[in-house]
Structures are given as C-alpha cells and as structure tokens.
C-alpha cells in the first residue's frame, strides 16, 4: 500500500500558478461590469468640509460618485472626518477603469486639517488628544487582558489606549534583586506591509435577489458574514467565491468586499474594485509597530530570576487586539519565578494595523530573544545552554498561569544545537552567528468536510477553506492515505460558500489542524461505507476487510476481493440498489497546537559601510508531523525570507504629519532572491494529540524568530547591539562608530 502521508507531494495547483494559467480575482471578467476607484485623503486627520463631484460626474462614462453619506462607511469610507492619510473619502464608479481613475482625480474635496497624532508614544500620554471619537470606539479589544492584577492598571483613563494585557507572577522587583546579572533594554520593530504579490480586489455581481462576490481572501465565510452585515442580506442569498490568493499573510480577510457589494446592489450592476499597488499600500493593514522594554535577570549559572516587559503596540486608526498575543508569548516561553508583563495598544492617525503572519509574535520574540542573547553574552554562556535551562515544557505555566500542553521547544532547541550548521560553525573576520527561538500558539475553529466516492471509484473531497499554503494538497494526501491510493487519485474541491461545508479563515496556522481533521473523519466515514457495501458483496464481516489500490479484500484471503469502482457504480446507476457513498466530517477542536521554531543565522558585516549580509541560515521547527515535507520546507523558507526583510530592510514609515512615505515597492524594500542565503531546514516531530496524524500548524512559527536571529548574529560579528529594526547599513555603521546603542 503506498504511503501518501509524509511523502513530498507537489502542490496540486502549483503547475497552473508557475505557468501563469491561474485565474486571480483581477482576471474575473463579468459582462457590463463597472469599475470603481477610490478617492483618498492626503491628510492623516481632517474634517471633510465638502466634496464637489460635479466635474467627475460630468465626465462621459462616469456612473456615480458616492460617499459615506449615501452608502455608509462600510469599514472603509470616511464619514465627515478622516483618520488616516489614504483613507477613502469617496468612490467613483465608471464604465472603464482608466476613466474611473481620471474622474477620481477631479473629485474636489475640501478638508479642514486637524492635528494628527502619529507617534504611538505620544498617543499614549495622558494629555494626548483622542484619535477617534467615542462613537467609533467599540468594546475594548482586550482579549489577552486576563492577568491577575489587571484591575490595578488605570491605563484605560488614557484616551487612546484601545487594548491592554497584564500578567504578573511573584514579585518582579524582588526577582531582579536576586539576579547576579540584569539586562535592561528597549527594542523597536517597525510596522510592516505584508508584501503579497496580488493587491486586494473584489468583483460583486447582483443577480435577482442574490449577490455573488468574487474576491481574494483568506476566509470566504468571514467575507460572507461581513457582506451580509453591511448589506442586510441573509447569508443564504450571498455567495462568496474565494479565488486563488496571490499571497495574504494575514492581510486578506475582509477589506473591499462590503463596499464593493454595496456599490453593486445600489447601482444594480456588477462592480469591480481592484486596487493598484499604490492604492493597496495606502489602505494596507500592516503588522503593528512595537516598542518593547525588557528587564531580564539571571543568576550567574544562567537560572532566570525575573522578567519584566512593557509593550506598546501601534494599532493605527482602528482598534486591534494584537497586544494580548504578544504579551502572552513574551511571558510564556521561559520558566521564570517573577514575571510582570504590561502591554498597551494605542490608536494613532495611521492606516489601521492588521495581521501579519503570527501577529504580535515576531515583535515579542524580537525583544525576548534579543534580551536572552544579551544575557548570554553578559554571562559568557552558550546561547543554547541558557535557553535550554529555562525553556518551557509540558505543564510549565504560561504567562496567565495555564499550563502548557505538550510542546516541542526543548526538542527544537536541541535539534538546532546538534545540527552541523551550529556544531561545525566557523567564523571568518566580521562574521557572526545568531540564535533565536520563537513560537505561535496555533488556532482553532469549527470545520466540516465531505468525501464522495464517484461512480468510477475515484474520490472527491469537498472543503470550504481557502488554500493559501498547499492545504488542498495535504487533504488529498490524507484521503489517499485512508483509501490506500495515490494522492493523484483524489480531487479536492474548494467550493464557494454556497456549495462548501463551513471552514474558518486560513489564518492562525489552523487549516491542516482543523479542516484536516474534518477531511480525515469524512474519508474514514466514506471508507467505512465502502467496507460495509463490500461486506455484503463478499459475505464477510466489514471488520475483516481491508482496502488498497482501489480494491476491497478479505484480510488473509486477498483473492476474495471486489473493486471499489464496481461497488461505487451501483450507487450511481439508474435503478441502482445502493445509496451514494458520502462521508462526512465535522469537528470543533478545542485545544490548539502551539508550534516552536529555532533559527540560527550567519551574517557578514561590512564595517566600512554597515551592510549586513546573511550568508547562511538554519531553520529548525517542530511541525508535529510533516504531512507534506516539501510544502512544510517551503513554508519555512518563505517565513525566513520575510524575517530577513523584517530584520534588514522593511519598514512602513510615515512623515511627521502622517503621510505614508513608503508607498510603493520602490521605497518599501522586501528581500529579493539574491538577498536570501541558502536555508537549511530541519524538521522536528513532536506529535500534536489532536492533530491529524499528529500534525501541527506550521505556517506562522517560521516567521517568528528570524529578526532576533539576525540581530544576534550582527552582535556576534561586531560586538555591537542595534536594537531598532531594521538594521539598515546606516544604523549599523552609526552603532559601530559608537554613536548609538
């Protein structure tokens, strides 16, 4: 019987993608579609005095110029007041895309500029003006704020705090007094654009009393829910077609869809809204800027005595909630008797922050793992030894006191330490190695799946999840494993929201973990149905039967056999006697599967220019079970590449009055192929109890430790610590010259 699980399997959709045959949302062609273009505010904070649409409306082919006054804000349009530069204040709809762009340029908006609060540190001050009026503030986004002494903190008095998280254990000041060595440092990590290849886009098509929305999203059911809330349509009258996604990384949940849907319904015509790259940057939902202060104390032997961390995350002009994850992770990775974590998230007049691959985790681990490295240097200890002494294991308390389930942090650290990349390291002049760990708690969400046996015995799996990372390929492998066939004997249909069983969004590293379990259950259910049919046919007990390569046979007597195709045919024939074979899987897994990664970076630093060149990299990760090792390694290499950008070049930057300065890929520097060194990947498999075949979510952990690994390598190479990312040549050179740090 061929093994389908644990075998490198090319992505089912990969050939179409690399050969340019894949249709993305911008390729959707609908007859009579109108084209929408956004009119954006140049100011970060302003009152909209008037909007003169006459010139735009007079252009032949312009169908409408609409504002929030007519159609509501829809999560995007400013209503009377603008809260970030780039916020749309009106939308032009025209027959043609270029015409819409031309018309958008002649919509005359008069603004009364208001003071903009751009700097998150300034926004936190008690005397800071409120960024948002009270009516735009929802419930406090304090998902992580369940620390023991949250009530002691009166930060809610501050106008712009929109989320907080507090965790405490023991007496941190006492713990610091017990320390022989204390590291005290502040780290800054900039806001980051997710850098997906495909900008946001949506096409909404009204059809009778129904609406179809084609879109690029990580979660089509989430889009349906928000479109229905925005338009008042019930969920069964809205069909969302999740297209192939050209990169999401957390940025593609719901953005343009409610607006596009509302336009289509109002104008009773299909509307297409596809952003340019510049438009995408202006309305992007970047990963949060964070400033994190750490005080970390240890005994001479490396035993940690205390960890105090204060976190400030910039939410931009909308409440967010990432601080809870960041605060939780920073206080949950190492055993420490005295802990104090205070996290705040503040509003500013900038584009609202969103999720970027493991939201909050790269920020938290950049600070924590840099501080651990500084501590190791002060103690003169091996970075692995220091970490292994305190690394959390099953049963150790997290920041909130709840015990960790079984995790693979220790195993991952050990695997990295034993890898030749580290063991046989050799350092030329101006080269250094940096070690960092990082983790992600994982996610859960209910999911369902179906598995059908077609009339010819072939297998079709139906899911509602959007495949952004190769999950459909893994589902095919799972069903193939259950039926004892090759993965290419299974089709996976990721259907639209009308046809597909429910699935959560593809975010939080949970699709294989949750939908995968539903697929597994559905395949096993279908297999049982086949076995029961075969039992009648072979006059044997179903429990004595086995299945492989399209045949069911009696165990121990393989000549007593029947083909799955013959059985299936009788379920689809006119006058047939057997009910169709449809397996069903439905799960609501309650416990997530946290995943840890340990990265080792090797860099070379040019002391004359400050340039940092990564020249080697090792990424080790606990993946539970690598269902498709090729896809897992690909995920890891992608995460590492993004971390290199985070460490060395990427930063969303705004001017003093809140204008976005990095509004294109010209100014926002993502790493390119030539900037990425060879990456060695090592997989550790500590099975997840509830994961299918033991698998864990693997998408987010590889994006977490990289920035600290690079910064630690630079410190190793130069003896100089730069704590503000990115490590641009100029910053590094200044540090080398002793001007900073």
């Amino acid at each position, binding site marked *: 019987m061929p093994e389908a699980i644990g075998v490198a399997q090319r992505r089912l959709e990969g050939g179409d993608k690399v050969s340019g045959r894949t249709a993305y949302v911008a390729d959707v062609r609908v007859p009579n579609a109108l084209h929408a273009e956004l009119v954006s505010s140049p100011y970060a904070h302003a009152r909209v005095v008037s909007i003169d649409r006459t010139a735009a409306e007079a252009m032949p082919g312009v169908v409408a110029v609409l504002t929030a006054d007519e159609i509501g804000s829809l999560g995007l349009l400013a209503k009377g007041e603008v809260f970030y530069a780039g916020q749309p204040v009106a939308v032009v709809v025209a027959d043609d895309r270029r015409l819409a762009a031309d018309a958008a340029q002649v919509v005359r908006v008069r603004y009364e500029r208001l003071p903009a609060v751009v700097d998150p540190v300034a926004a936190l001050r008690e005397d800071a003006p409120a960024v948002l009026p009270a009516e735009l503030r929802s419930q406090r986004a304090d998902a992580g704020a369940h620390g023991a002494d949250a009530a002691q903190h009166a930060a809610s008095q501050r106008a712009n705090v929109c989320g907080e998280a507090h965790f405490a254990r023991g007496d941190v000041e006492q713990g610091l007094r017990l320390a022989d060595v204390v590291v005290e440092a502040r780290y800054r990590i900039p806001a980051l654009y997710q850098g997906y290849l495909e900008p946001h886009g949506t096409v909404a098509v009204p059809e009778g009393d129904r609406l179809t929305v084609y879109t690029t999203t990580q979660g089509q059911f989430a889009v349906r829910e928000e479109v229905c809330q925005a338009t008042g349509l019930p969920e069964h009258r809205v069909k969302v077609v999740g297209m192939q996604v050209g990169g999401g990384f957390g940025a593609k949940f719901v953005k343009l869809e409610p607006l596009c849907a509302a336009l289509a319904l109002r104008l009773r015509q299909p509307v297409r809204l596809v952003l340019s790259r510049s438009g995408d940057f202006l309305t992007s939902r970047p990963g949060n800027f964070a400033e994190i202060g750490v005080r970390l104390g240890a005994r001479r032997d490396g035993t940690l005595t205390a960890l105090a961390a204060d976190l400030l995350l910039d939410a931009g002009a909308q409440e967010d909630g990432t601080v809870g994850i960041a605060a939780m992770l920073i206080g949950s990775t190492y055993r420490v008797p005295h802990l104090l974590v205070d996290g705040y998230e503040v509003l500013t007049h900038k584009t609202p922050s969103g999720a970027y691959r493991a939201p909050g985790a790269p920020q938290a681990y950049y600070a924590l793992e840099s501080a651990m490295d500084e501590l190791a240097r002060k103690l003169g200890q091996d970075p692995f030894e220091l970490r292994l002494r305190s690394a959390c294991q099953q049963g150790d308390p997290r920041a909130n006191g709840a015990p960790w389930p079984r995790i693979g942090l220790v195993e991952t650290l050990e695997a990295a330490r034993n890898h030749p990349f580290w063991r046989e390291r050799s350092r030329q002049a101006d080269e250094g190695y940096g070690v960092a760990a990082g983790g992600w708690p994982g996610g859960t969400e209910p999911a369902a799946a179906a598995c059908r046996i077609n009339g010819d015995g072939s297998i079709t799996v139906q899911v509602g999840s959007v495949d952004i990372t190769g999950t459909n390929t893994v589902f095919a492998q799972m069903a193939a494993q259950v039926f004892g066939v090759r993965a290419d004997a299974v089709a996976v249909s990721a259907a639209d929201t009308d046809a597909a069983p429910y699935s959560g969004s593809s975010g939080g590293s949970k699709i294989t973990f949750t939908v995968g379990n539903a697929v597994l259950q559905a395949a096993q259910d279908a297999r049982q149905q086949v076995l029961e049919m075969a039992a009648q046919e072979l006059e044997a007990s179903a429990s004595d039967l086995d299945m492989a390569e399209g045949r069911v046979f009696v165990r121990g007597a393989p000549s007593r056999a029947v083909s799955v195709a013959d059985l299936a045919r009788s379920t689809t024939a006119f006058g047939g006697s057997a009910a169709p074979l449809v397996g069903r899987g439905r799960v609501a897994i309650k416990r997530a599967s946290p995943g840890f990664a340990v990265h080792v970076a090797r860099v070379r630093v040019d002391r004359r*220019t400050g340039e940092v060149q990564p020249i080697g990299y090792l990424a080790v990760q606990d993946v539970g079970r690598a269902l498709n090792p090729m896809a897992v390694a690909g995920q890891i290499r992608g995460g590492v590449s993004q971390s290199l950008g985070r460490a060395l*070049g990427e930063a969303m930057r705004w001017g003093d009055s809140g204008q976005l300065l990095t509004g294109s890929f010209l*100014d926002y*520097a993502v790493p*390119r192929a*030539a900037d990425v060194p060879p990456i060695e990947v090592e997989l550790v498999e500590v099975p997840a109890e509830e994961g299918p075949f033991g698998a864990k979510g693997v998408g987010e952990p590889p994006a977490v430790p990289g920035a600290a690994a690079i910064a630690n390598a630079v410190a190793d190479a130069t003896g100089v610590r730069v704590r503000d990312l990115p490590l641009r040549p100029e910053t590094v050179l200044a540090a080398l010259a002793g001007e900073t740090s």
Partner: protein
Amino acid sequence: MKPAAFGYLTPRTREEAIEVLSRYAGDAKVLAGGQSLVPLLNFRLTSFRYLVDINRIPDLDYIRSEQGYLAIGALARHRSVEQSAEAARECPLLPEALQFVGHPVIRQRGTVCGSIAHADPSAELPALLTALGGSVVLEGSSGRRVADAEEYFLGYLMTAQQPDELLVEARFPKLPNGSGFAFEELARRHGDFAIVGVACAALPDGSVRLGVCGANSVPFRPLKAETAAAQGDLQEAGRLAAADSDPDSDLHATAEYRRAMVSKLVERAVRHALERKEGNARG
C-alpha cells in the same frame, strides 16, 4: 494606477521624430526603453500629451568603435552593451557599471541613452559618462550638436537637451590598454537606485578619473580627489571626494551617511582600479 491618457506617435525617421518633438515642444516625450518613463507615468507622477516612440526608427540600435570613443546609438539596450565584445574591449568599465543598472529584465529593454537622458543623479551611466569625459550627440530642428557630459547634466532630472532635440548617440571615451577600472556601488538591494556609486578609471599615464552618483544633484567628477588618487593617497582621495559632495537626505539615507559612503567607495574604487591596472601591466 495606470497612466493618464496620451497620444502615441511612431515616427519612422529621425527627421519625423524631430518634427513632432518641435511641433509639440514640451508636451511630447521620447519613449525608448521606457524603464524610467513608464513607471513615472503609471504612478501619475508625470504626464505628457504625446509619447514619441522612437523604436521604429532604423539605424539607432548600434554599438560602434570610433576614433577614441565607443558610440552607443539611442536604441542600443543596456543588455546588448553589457554583452558587447566591443564594449568589453574598448571600454570595459561600461559593461561593469551596467551590472548595477536594475535587473536583467530591465536591462533587456532599457537603453543606455535613455538612462543618460533621464539624468537621475543616482544613476550609474551619467556618472560614468562624466568620469570619462564623454559626450552626447543631440539632433534638433536647428541641427546636430555634441554636448560634453559636464555641460549636459544640469540638475535633478534636468539636462541641456532642448524639447525639440533627440539624443541620438552617447560617446564613451575608450580606455587605453593598460588601464585599470572599477565601479563600486552601495544600494539597499542589488539593482535598487544607488545610495552612492563611484566609477573609477586609472589610466596608463598615471592619472585617475572618478565619477560619483547619488551625492549631488548631478553626477560629478571630484577633481581634487582624482589628483590625490593619482598620487596614491586613497584615504585623502576619499576625504576630498566626500568634501566635494553635496548630497540630500532622503528616506533611505541621510546626507551624512551618503557623504561618508562617498569617501569609502572612492577609496575602494580607486584601490580596485589600481590593482587591476597593476595586474594589466604585469599581464
């Protein structure tokens, strides 16, 4: 977004091109490889009523060895020059500098003359043309003229080219046998606009020529640095070149850093060029 609407003209001869350029003076822009112009149009940072696409004009796509210089026609692509045997033989600094111009796909389409006419102060080729004392040939309604690099580049994206003139040829002086040369550049990533770039030629007569980009509103020759370099004082050459630069701060580097990098890169380029010259002499 995509560009604002424009008229698209496709002259078949130089005369026709010059005719439409003078007819629509100021409202028309020459399109050759489009690697700088088209992004500016697409970002709507600029717009023109007419684009004059010169790609259908014959006899502009050439690389010719002339008396004392290498002549590059207006339609010669970066990539052709980069791979040209003549260029490698007569002016090897040119293909070396071209490695730093964008990426292969950009060089496949972009033209040497277009890069010069665009006059971006951070661009490599204008600095090289300046370092070598090259020139450009301009044809307009009042005839044909040759402009030296130093009089051609006037400021940020500004040249002495008149609206009715077409840049038909760039002339790169040949490097005599026994020369050493180097192009050094600091950019955020390979292929990005240079933060600072330095072209250097060490000539058999002992003189050194330098051209610097990214450190002034025009590419420039640091003359005092050239003298110091010729005397073998590399550090002093770097210091003098830095003193002669007048960079601006921007998103990617402060003026101070740019100036410091002029010093380091001049030093590095001169050292590299002298080493090569030495190697050539021995070889």
